């Protein structure tokens, strides 16, 4: 019975850690002075409303690879929109001259390299991808 309980607890811990590792978080480079953002502030930056962080520094949002699970999940969590809707939204903003869409990269590694190397970039990664070079500024509520 006791052994059975230990297995059960181990299983739940594993599931919980696994869930956490696959959770999306919004991050900036370690050298970026921004410590935390609200969801509204993340929306403002990623939906082209403002082109700076709250402290006035220019913000350069980065997107994951088009069609990836991470990108689709991020926009569902952020504004509850499909990637198709986000594409149409950005076509409207881009060609009306209001704002340019987040930079996108051919691979996630390229995106992560850019994220780590600039003070102006902001991105979203799996919790498991966060290392010492990145700083979490927003966590989506579970």
């Amino acid at each position: 019975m006791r052994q059975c309980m230990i297995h059960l607890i181990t299983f739940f811990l594993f599931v919980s850690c696994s869930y956490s590792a696959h959770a999306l978080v919004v991050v900036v480079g370690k050298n970026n002075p921004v410590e935390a953002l609200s969801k509204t502030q993340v929306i403002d930056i990623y939906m082209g409303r403002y082109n700076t962080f709250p402290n006035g520094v220019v913000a350069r949002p980065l997107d994951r690879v088009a069609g990836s699970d991470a990108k689709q999940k991020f926009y569902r969590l952020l504004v509850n929109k499909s990637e198709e809707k986000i594409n149409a939204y950005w076509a409207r903003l881009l060609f009306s001259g209001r704002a340019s869409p987040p930079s996108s990269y051919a691979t996630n590694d390229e995106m992560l390299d850019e994220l780590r190397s600039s003070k102006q970039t902001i991105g979203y990664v799996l919790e498991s991808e966060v290392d010492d070079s990145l700083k979490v500024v927003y966590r989506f509520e579970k």
Partner: protein
Amino acid sequence: MLHFKRSQLHFAACLLMLSLCAVSDSFAANDKVKLNGFATLGAIYNDSDDLGFRPNLKIPGRTGLSLAPDSLIGLQANINISPQWDAVIQAVYRDKLDEKAINYLDVAFLRYRLNNRLELRGGRMNTDIYFLSEYKSVGYAYLWARPPAEFYSKVTSVSQFEGGDVLFKRSLGDGFFTAKLGYGETDASIATTGDGLDVHFTNMLMASASYQQNNWQVRASFLDARVNDFSADLNTIDDAIALFPPNIWPGGPRLRERFDFVGKKQQFFGLGYRFDNDTWLVQSEIGFINSQWDIERDTVSGYVSLGYQNDGMTYFATVSAVEPTKNNLSDRVGEISPNAPAAIAAAIQSFRPLIREALEQNVANQHTFSLGVNWMFSASLVAKLQLDHSVIADDDYALWRVYNEPEADHTVNVASLSLNWVF
């Protein structure tokens, strides 16, 4: 043709556009310039031999099968000069009445971001007075084959301007608020039921406000413009009035004033609502044109569109309508001296049918039912199929190019198929 007295503002805007082209070229070698584009390959079939279909008044009307009205290609350069300064140039190649090279530039402006909430722009810009005003050429970005002509066609003559504007924006509650104020002028080559005409609007004052939350958006807008020049001459009226001195026909100069266009104001008021929850989509706008010029009648126009979205497909239905609100314009010739001989008075009275014809030549009174499907084929390609059934009241064909005078209360069917890319 018109010989416009180009104002300093217009001249400065042209210079700015040319210099932005040069700036774009010099920056093209680095990542400060982003190039993007859009294109539509669209075919229409118009079942009327008499009335030429056109998406708006700037485009020649077509009958039968044609690729011309909807097909276009556009290129845009976004030039980041500094964190505060940037520029945007957009050129669109499409079938249109105006073939001046400079007017293939739809947008060319320089922007200064004062802070996160305030932006100033100068150059040539889209007039932000309706939902699609800033991206009406980008078929990928909206639902229908083209914006509903009843609402968009007439206001397209002021769809761009050269001048400046200021944008205020801020987060408000759970949504986002923007307000814009602009001032400038524009030239437009537009068509009536017959040949094309050139019109020059000055003192354009624009204001718009918009509030958007996640699933919905409302907007209100206002435009006030003054007609400064118009390529239709008033020689016939002038010649007729010149035949009769004012002591015989005191009403002549007053009649001339009714038809004169210089300095006459045109005003537009618009309201719009859009809802989109990824399953249902509703969009509606209503607009009022208030005109001091009798030839351009006061009108009310609008549309309601309902869409159902499922698995990349959006099935939609739209009802749109336009009609004049001032229907009882007088065709009286005005005061004739009681001392005028009977034959002279009769000659002056014989102008009434001509006056009536002039007053009726630019009236739009019709409604259209549209059904269609929008298919997001890939992340950068949308295909659209749309069927339009237009019912035109009396002989109020102002939204069409009239090749042959059809019978009254004519109906026209237009089928459209298009592929729309962004790249």
